[in-house]
């Protein structure tokens, strides 16, 4: 049985004027870690809110743990854990009070499922008497995860859980997710960090309410259709502008210490052009695309398709 299944789900707002989710179908296997990526406003949070029974779809059906999201909403609420995009714990309650509140609501206790949250909670314990509103970003996320886990859910929904969180805490957070997955919990997670998307079993790319592709990170990267180069020179901003002005350039953007370039011309021609433009000490090499490159390419294609011809 699939842990999550969506069939032709559509959701509109403002009496049908805003199409948020457009005929989306996909399924997630039990124990799978599935990443949903897409720009802001793509429909990710709407999907989360429907699957967590907080919104009713206009059309289509969906199940979580075999239960229907409309008819069996009460049963679903008992088996899911949800971390919304916005911090939604009680700011005026302490760390411990928040946790025991959520445990009580689900008719369990902190002790009963302590083993599930232990790794995370030990880091929070020194602050257990602090009000949740006074915690740092990273600590808030950890507490929210604890609260989402306290009733031992079968399916975990995490809507951008690491936004605003530093690299070290993000790494720790994903280590925890790996351990939860190892215990058989199904995880649906959205993120704007592409390094995190790469850690998922499969990634769904969503844009304008439509699901554009579903594939493993490896296959997502393999499907990149063009040759991609990494380019670097001392005058990076000039390099970026020069490359974007070249007729052959399909896309050129910053990528860490390099620029990434896809072009219709050969390497020699571009090198010549850059030398004529006064660039010296040029580094120019083919690179393997990453999930981030795939994401950028897709949005670029989309934006060009909308008559927005900027490079």
């Amino acid at each position, binding site marked *: 049985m699939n842990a999550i299944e969506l069939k032709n789900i559509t959701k509109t707002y403002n009496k049908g004027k805003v199409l948020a989710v457009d005929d989306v179908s996909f399924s997630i296997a039990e124990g799978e870690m599935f990443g949903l990526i897409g720009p802001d406003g793509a429909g990710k949070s709407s999907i989360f809110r429907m699957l967590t029974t907080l919104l009713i779809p206009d059309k289509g059906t969906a199940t979580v743990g075999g239960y229907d999201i409309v008819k069996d909403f009460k049963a679903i609420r008992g088996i899911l854990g949800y971390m919304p995009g916005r911090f939604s714990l009680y700011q005026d309650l302490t760390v411990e009070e928040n946790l025991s509140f959520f445990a009580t609501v689900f008719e369990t206790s902190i002790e009963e499922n302590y083993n599930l949250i232990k790794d995370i909670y030990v880091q929070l314990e020194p602050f257990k008497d602090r009000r949740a509103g006074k915690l740092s*970003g*990273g*600590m808030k996320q950890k507490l929210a995860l604890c609260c989402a886990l306290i009733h031992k859910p079968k399916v975990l929904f995490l809507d*951008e859980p690491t936004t*605003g969180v*530093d690299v*070290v805490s993000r790494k720790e957070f994903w280590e925890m997710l790996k351990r939860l997955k190892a215990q058989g919990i199904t995880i649906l997670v959205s993120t704007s960090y592409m390094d995190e998307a790469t850690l998922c079993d499969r990634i769904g790319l969503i844009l304008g309410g439509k699901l554009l592709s579903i594939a493993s990170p490896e296959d997502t990267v393999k499907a990149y259709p063009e040759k991609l180069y990494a380019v670097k020179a001392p005058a*990076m901003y000039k390099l970026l502008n020069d490359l974007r002005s070249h007729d052959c350039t399909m896309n050129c953007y910053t990528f*860490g210490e390099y620029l990434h370039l896809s072009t219709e011309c050969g390497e020699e021609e571009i090198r010549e052009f850059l030398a004529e433009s006064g660039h010296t000490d040029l580094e120019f090499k083919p690179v393997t695309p990453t999930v981030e490159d795939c994401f950028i390419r897709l949005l670029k294609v989309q934006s060009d398709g909308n008559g927005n011809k900027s490079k």
Partner: protein
Amino acid sequence: METVIKANKLTKRFGDFVAVDEITFDVYKGEIFGFLGANGAGKTTAMRMLCGLSTPTSGEATVAGFDVFTQPEEIKKNIGYMSQKFSLYEDLSVLENIEFYGGIYGLSRSEIREKNKELISKLGLEKEANNLVRSLPLGWKQKLSFLVAIVHQPKIVFLDEPTGGVDPYMRREFWDLIYDAADKGITIFVTTHYLDEAEYCNRVTIMVDGKIEALDSPGGLRQKFGVASMDEVFYKLARQAKRSAD
């Protein structure tokens, strides 16, 4: 090189807690200066002192030539600031926000009209100009916030995690605006948790437990720590933090 920020042993205490601990550095005109650190390392506190929003406990600093202790109001007139939490009025339209900030910074009516046109076309928001800011996607809001923060052509602009939660495509559009502003001589002081963005800075500091533990160009830092990416530089430094992120 003209120095636009000069900090010398700048310190901020809250009771027994030393949030910022004797930080010393210079920032040069037109530079993109990255200010990195883990959650709770003291970045926002340091930034608030430099913006004239919080009085330091000790040390010295000048921003755009003005003293942070005695001339905070002069500093505010000469800088732009885009805070982590709030920068635009959600209940005002795009145009109204530009007008409001233009007015606050003392632009004349004709200058504001110019700015309205310039910013709207730069952002491609012609259709949305009269929509409430609340209805814009996050990435657009952040781009608008940035342009509003530099509407008065400040010498320096402070950006506190401007791209948090923004997708990879929009983040790059945001950085195109930063590059453009820096190219026109505006000094950029920016914090981020995306370490690829650290590479776009001319120089980068990394704060750990209230102290500056590293300050160099991204390439210099990679070399010094013998690693291939800024991710690893950051990880090496931030992992030593004793202070918990609170």
